[in-house]
């Protein structure tokens, strides 16, 4: 099948992390000068594969060949020297430095007496920006630029490295339409110069406009690599999600209760962003004993929606939220707590855990009032309180005194869910509760969530994994770029339909 020498070959790459196989015997062959799209759902292994290519991780097994020579990268520097540049989804720029300084960071040019030669760097930078049809001046402070322009700074950096392979990790996820169009022109120009592009995306329209060939990954495995002309967007989406989901589903026979929560025309502004809003005109209903799934890509507004409902949003939103028919407007999570709304946050380590408190302290935190004896906290009462959720949610811990940081991700998550169950919530907001949790623990969390729902809780569940929503949810709401693009019952929902609605924006 070889028609041109390969710029990059990754053969039989396997990478394990504690508890997960991120990549399992993945092979990727990229021809010189082509635009090669890599598609897959969140967690499919795209980013891990690219981190191996750019020297961030080293693979457990497998061979990496650059220009036909087997290579081993000890770090990102090695990858840069081999001509590989990566533009991460989260940009890695020093915001307080001028643009030119960022482009040459770590490779500063020197002039007379070994002093930094700002002028030469700025001239070079200006030349690169002219190529990229970018109006940014090299002396501007990087943090003052729009995201799209910041991305061009990263691309200029790749150009100044004279990279022969440029990896772009979901580059348009934060761009406006005109910025995306400019990026596409830039990509075409790079290809015309002979650069090879690896383009990671799950937006099918982009992929089919740009790419020559498409590789699909799923669950850390290589599904297939095809020429663009030999396939259709629908087929690729199918490969991305087409997994065996025959396992048992939880939503059957759950009695639906009265309506608890009603949201109408909820809009959350986003002042410093060209789109202007994080959420627009969201309406939804939630009943007792029901799980409402919220699907959407990264940045679609899933977390923001839950934060508004929990009183944790920073900006002022408009619209109405009714709890049991009464209009509510939470200004602080405490008020949401008092109204029996609970939220398990998305980023466990950053937003959920208290590393300095033990298992008991982490569980009892929101209901310490019940652990008072004579006005003072009683350790015994606290442990008694915490023992309940530990037993009910099946936390595996060496003891109630154990450090929370010593538990596995799944058990930490159960502790946090337990913390909120102690507040006896009626509405439970779960923001991507199984992220970074291994398969077995996921199954335990699923049956826990199902059990809670059968006890009459109304649950709103967001997830970056579609099978999770299909397993648990009664209804699914799909968000794309802050708007609801579809609402379907479980019977109507398929992964492909959700994916289509999620990429509609």
């Amino acid at each position, binding site marked *: 099948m070889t028609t041109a020498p390969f710029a990059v070959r990754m053969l039989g790459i396997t990478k394990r992390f504690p508890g997960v196989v991120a990549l399992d015997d993945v092979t990727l062959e990229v021809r010189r000068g082509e635009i090669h799209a890599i598609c897959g759902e969140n967690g499919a292994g795209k980013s891990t594969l690219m981190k191996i290519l750019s020297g961030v991780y080293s693979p457990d097994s497998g061979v990496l060949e650059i220009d036909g020579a087997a290579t081993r990268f000890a770090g990102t520097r090695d990858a840069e020297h081999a001509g590989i540049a990566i533009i991460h989804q989260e940009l890695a720029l020093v915001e307080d430095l001028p643009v030119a300084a960022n482009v040459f960071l770590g490779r500063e040019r020197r002039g007379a007496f070994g002093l930094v030669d700002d002028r030469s760097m700025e001239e070079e930078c200006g030349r690169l920006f002219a190529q990229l049809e970018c109006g940014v001046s090299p002396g501007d402070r990087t943090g003052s630029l729009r995201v799209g322009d910041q991305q061009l700074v990263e691309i200029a950096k790749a150009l100044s490295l004279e990279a022969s392979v440029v990896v772009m990790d979901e580059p348009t996820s934060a761009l406006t339409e005109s910025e995306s169009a400019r990026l596409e022109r830039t990509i075409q120009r790079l290809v015309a110069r002979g650069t090879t592009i690896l383009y990671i995306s799950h937006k099918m329209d982009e992929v089919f406009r740009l790419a020559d060939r498409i590789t699909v990954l799923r669950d850390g495995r290589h599904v297939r690599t095809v020429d663009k002309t030999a396939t259709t967007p629908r087929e690729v989406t199918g490969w991305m999600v087409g997994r065996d989901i025959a396992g048992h589903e939880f939503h059957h026979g759950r009695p639906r209760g009265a309506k608890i929560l009603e949201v109408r025309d909820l809009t959350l502004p986003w002042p410093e962003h060209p789109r202007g809003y994080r959420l627009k005109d969201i309406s939804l209903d939630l009943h007792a004993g029901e799980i409402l799934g919220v699907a959407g890509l990264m940045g679609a507004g899933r977390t923001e929606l839950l934060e508004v409902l929990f009183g944790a949003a920073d900006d002022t939103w408009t619209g109405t939220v009714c709890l049991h028919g009464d209009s509510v407007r939470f200004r602080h*999570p405490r008020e949401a707590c008092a109204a029996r709304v609970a939220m398990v946050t998305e980023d466990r380590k950053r937003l959920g855990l*208290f590393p300095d408190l033990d298992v008991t302290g982490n569980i009892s935190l929101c209901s310490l009032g019940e652990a008072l004896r004579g006005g003072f*906290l009683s350790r015994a009462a606290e442990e008694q309180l915490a023992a309940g959720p530990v037993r009910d949610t099946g936390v595996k811990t*060496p003891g109630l*005194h154990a450090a929370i940081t010593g538990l596995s991700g799944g058990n930490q998550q159960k502790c946090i869910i337990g913390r909120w169950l102690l507040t006896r919530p009626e509405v439970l907001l779960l923001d991507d509760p199984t992220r970074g949790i291994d*398969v*077995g623990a*996921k*199954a335990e969390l699923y049956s826990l969530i199902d059990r809670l729902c059968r006890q009459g809780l109304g649950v709103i569940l967001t997830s970056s994994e579609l099978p999770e929503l299909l*397993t648990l949810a009664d209804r699914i709401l799909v968000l794309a770029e802050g708007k609801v693009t579809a609402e379907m019952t479980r019977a109507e929902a398929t992964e492909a339909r959700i994916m289509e609605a999620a990429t509609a924006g």
Partner: protein
Amino acid sequence: MAATNTNPSGGSSPAAQGSPRLRRTSWFGLRSGEWALVAAIVVAVLLTGLVDSNHSYFKLPWQSLTDIARNTSLLGIFALGATVVIIAGGIDLSSGSMIALSGTVCATTMLALAPKEMMGFKPVGPAVVAAGVAAALLTGFLVGTLHAWLITAVRLPPFIATLATLVGLRSFARALCESATHALTPTKSALVNVYDPMFKAVRENVWVPVTVFILLALFTWVLLTRTVLGRHIHALGGNEQAARLAGIRTENVKWFAYCFGAMTAALAGLFYVANESVAQPVNQGRGHELNAIAAAVVGGCSLSGGVGTVPGTVLGAVFLRVVIDAVSKIIKTGADVYEGLIVGVVVVIAVTFSQLGALAKGGRQLLPGPLGLCAIPTLALLAGSIASMTAGRNGGIATGLGALLFLGLVRFWESRRTAT
């Protein structure tokens, strides 16, 4: 992933059960680091008793004890405030200036209420003293409120907010002192003498500050370990965002923490006035905020928040004062000359010791590369010059060379260890 097929009972991670890192590693209520401090205090006292050529610990044990007890109480009272602020994830740099302001407010209040008695060095009466004390504590509350407002509403970093008040409050205190004396007495003055017998009694009875310190320590200890607010302070310092998302009113918790910090400093300021019989805003408590932070850090507080104990801070304060006293006894100069140096060295050594374990395990070097090479003569020169100023020229040279040799050996050993 085929998550739904998995047996729900089989999903535990071996990492969770592998090494149960238990939190409670305490014996008789103190953690290992705190026992180390107790041991260090005993060693410092014994060493002073042996080395001091005047044998003051044997000849005048009572006086030595009262000296240390008074100094420890005065430091400890506002070190407890610093501890609460640090555990809550903040920092209060202003307590030294708060001490000066508190003393000045107390003295000028008394001056305003009883100008004749104050100027005539006569008793002013308990009501006037009570008013002065109340005004000083109220000032502490107001300053704490100002800090909390600057930090939570204006969103200044705590370092900046309290740096501003560190500089500003002392100047404010001086201005207050001068304008009050100008208005109420014949001459403008940058100090107010306080001769009331109640203040004198506090100076002469060391048990008063010691009792106040002990009661305050007990109060703080109960607060931090046995109340909901205390738990919220720990949670706030450990993970502020998570604390907010757990429904904790983080801004109110901060408000309490900074008020507690400023009010303990105000309380300490009253004892400073009693001790020196004068409210003197220019120099009273100058730089002492760093001693309080040092006591908390030596006692095990983490400046990143969430970690710290009251027993640790109490022991840290005792240790600092014992070492300062030891040095002044051994080298027979005023303690204040070397006080800053001692505090600095003690903090560095205490924190270094607490990291030695991680240093050995992580394969990290204490003296790495060219920086390590330059650090060796720097440290040797520092040790040598301190020794030569305190123990004479020969002692200085010997200490310097000894340090050079020792650090050289450490470097040699480290490079051998990492090479293999």
